[in-house]
């Protein structure tokens, strides 16, 4: 079943990358969100998929039930989601600021900073 998700992750990444190559800065941002979702999924898939056995330990046990899901990638992804969130917000407002400053959302017209010197 992992193979299906390999396909999905690849497709999502491809869509995200295509968006990140566009001239519209907001669409670039959408591409970034898509890629970050896809990569989180990729880490998840690389840690193997388990159905219906979360890494929790019953209150009367010392060990999780056999065949429990791999907890380490979950912890890593959880961290990645929150960090990604912070950075996406930052990028979002950076894009907002850039659009306001340049009066356009076209990245090819945003050369102000480079030519000013």
């Amino acid at each position, binding site marked *: 079943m992992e193979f299906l998700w390999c396909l999905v992750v690849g497709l999502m990444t491809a869509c995200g990358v295509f968006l990140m190559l566009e001239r519209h800065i907001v669409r670039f941002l959408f591409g970034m969100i898509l890629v970050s979702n896809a990569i989180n999924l990729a880490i998840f898939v690389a840690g193997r998929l388990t159905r219906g056995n*979360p890494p*929790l330990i019953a*209150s009367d046990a010392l060990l999780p039930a056999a065949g429990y899901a791999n907890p380490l990638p979950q912890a890593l992804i*959880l961290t990645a989601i*929150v960090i990604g*969130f*912070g950075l996406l*917000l930052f990028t979002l*407002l950076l894009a*907002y600021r850039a659009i306001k400053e340049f009066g356009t959302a076209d990245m090819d017209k945003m050369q102000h900073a480079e030519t000013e010197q």
Partner: protein
Amino acid sequence: MSSIIFRTSAHIVTVLMLVFSVYLLLRGHNNPGGGFIAGLIAVIAFALLMLAETPDYVRERLIYPPPAFAGSGVLIALFAGLLPLFFGQPFLSGLWLGKIGSPLLFDVGVYLAVIGSVLMILLNVEEELS
């Protein structure tokens, strides 16, 4: 956004969500939950309140400015990490006193840091843009 029904229910829902977020924070060590999730729920609660009222209203209710929450969160987490050093253990090892331990304190720090940072962005964005 300013219908009376929405405004009144927003207040109630905010309080409920805040209680729920503290519940998720405290039970996080043994069940799904924890500092990040609880913090995000609290932020959503405040976002609801902000939409029903104004950013200033939320700021008043918070008493301390959001950066103070974020900063104290990081400091609390750091403190929880430094505490074991006084007992001759490495940085960030868990110390336990019955059911309460330094990892819980650490999670509270994370909780506050998430609330402070995201609220900081949310309130500023709303104020700047409108």
